[in-house]
């Protein structure tokens, strides 16, 4: 592997700076955002690099768990922040976070123990990247699906109530909206799988190849990861949307949109 020096990175940074200047001249109004985001990337990734270095040097379940929890809580906040309307109170945070926890952690532990089978199973070199990829994708799926669910329910409240008035159960009355929500949560990963290798070379595989891994081995890992991500995203989305759509109704199956608030 070719090791990068700081001047190497500086050259790339200058390119970003040039882009910012160019867009400022065209009054594109994104230069500021561009520079802040670039700075965040540099700082956040440097920090995580140091954290991972320490983590790899001190292999202990407690540290791995703490790291995983931190990632989960940040992802949970992100899911909540990305919804136009979210559930009031602790539901708003817990619904996405618990769904992510159940799906991502279950899939990650299953893959670590059953498929990879390293000793110890929580070896951070595998556990943290795997969980990171799972959480990131599951977070996207759940955020998109929940946003779709609550926004559509809000817009179509008259239709939902009309269906209730005609004697349909909450389950029937919300079924079409729930379907759309689940679909929209799963579309990104389905597209990613369909385009993998043809339109795009997935980042993880590319990374392994850059690091010198044989392409066929890198491809096997990528297939494994894609499948795990799909299952994690799918289960998390199904769970969050199922529980979320029930939560839109009370015990007497009345539509309760006052359980939502605008973000």
């Amino acid at each position, binding site marked *: 592997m070719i090791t990068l020096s700081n001047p190497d990175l500086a050259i790339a940074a200058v390119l970003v700076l040039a882009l910012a200047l160019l867009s400022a001249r065209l009054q594109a109004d994104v230069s500021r955002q561009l520079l802040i985001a670039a700075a965040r990337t540099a700082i956040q990734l440097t920090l995580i690099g140091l954290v991972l270095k320490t983590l790899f040097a001190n292999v202990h379940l407690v540290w791995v768990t703490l790291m995983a929890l931190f990632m989960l809580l940040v992802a949970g906040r992100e899911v909540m922040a990305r919804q136009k309307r979210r559930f009031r109170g602790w539901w708003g945070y817990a619904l996405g976070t618990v769904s992510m926890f159940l799906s991502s952690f279950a899939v990650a532990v299953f893959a670590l123990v059953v498929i990879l089978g390293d000793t110890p199973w929580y070896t951070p070199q595998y556990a943290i990247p795997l969980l990171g990829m799972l959480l990131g994708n599951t977070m996207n799926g759940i955020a998109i699906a929940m946003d779709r669910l609550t926004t559509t329910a809000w817009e*179509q409240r*008259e*239709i939902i*109530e*009309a*269906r*209730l*008035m*005609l*004697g*349909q*159960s909450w389950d029937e009355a919300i079924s*079409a909206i729930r379907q759309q929500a689940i679909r929209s949560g799963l579309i990104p990963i389905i597209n990613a799988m369909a385009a993998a290798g043809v339109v795009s070379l997935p980042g993880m595989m590319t990374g392994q190849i850059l690091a010198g891994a044989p392409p066929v081995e890198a491809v096997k890992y990528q297939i494994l990861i894609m499948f795990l991500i799909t299952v994690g995203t799918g289960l998390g989305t199904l769970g969050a949307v199922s529980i979320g759509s029930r939560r839109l109704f*009370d015990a*007497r*199956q*009345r*539509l309760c949109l006052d359980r939502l608030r605008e973000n």
Partner: protein
Amino acid sequence: MIGPVSFSLDAGECLCLSGPSGTGKSLLLRAIADLDPHEGSVWLDGTASDAIAPALWRCRVGLLPPDSSWWLPRAIDHFHDGQPLSLDSLGLEPGLLGEPVARLSSGERQRLALLRLLANTPRVLLLDEPTANLDPASTLRVEAVIGEFRKTHQAAVIWVSHDPAQIARVANRHLRVSGSELREQTVEHNT
């Protein structure tokens, strides 16, 4: 707003409810259909609303809101048992059922929504200004169809209306919102 009130209704009876806008007539109907959380209780043939499944209650106590909602492309898709029978008596062409709902007039949609509700054969009909979008001829047809349904199925009807002439045509009883109370009015039949 209508305060704590209590009233009862016999099978086959038609109770008209009138009064200024914003006094809670629609909310009262929504509470009876158990669509909003409410205090007090509603009984039908000795069964309280919260003693049976909500969907079953709303099948028996059918609410017709002032604006109808449709979620499938064509009107016919909303009828489980095929074409409704009373199209003709409401002055509707059978072809309308196959048209995209968006292309129907609000009056046509409103009459189809009534048929959609009657297809459930509810024991109680809650009608929230059912003829607000209709011309006089259609209004009379709707009144006749509801009257027929009421007689055939001994259904009780609560009918929100602002039109004294309509109330005189359809009501057995008339309650008027006055402050927070419902005042019983004498019904003058002009038939």
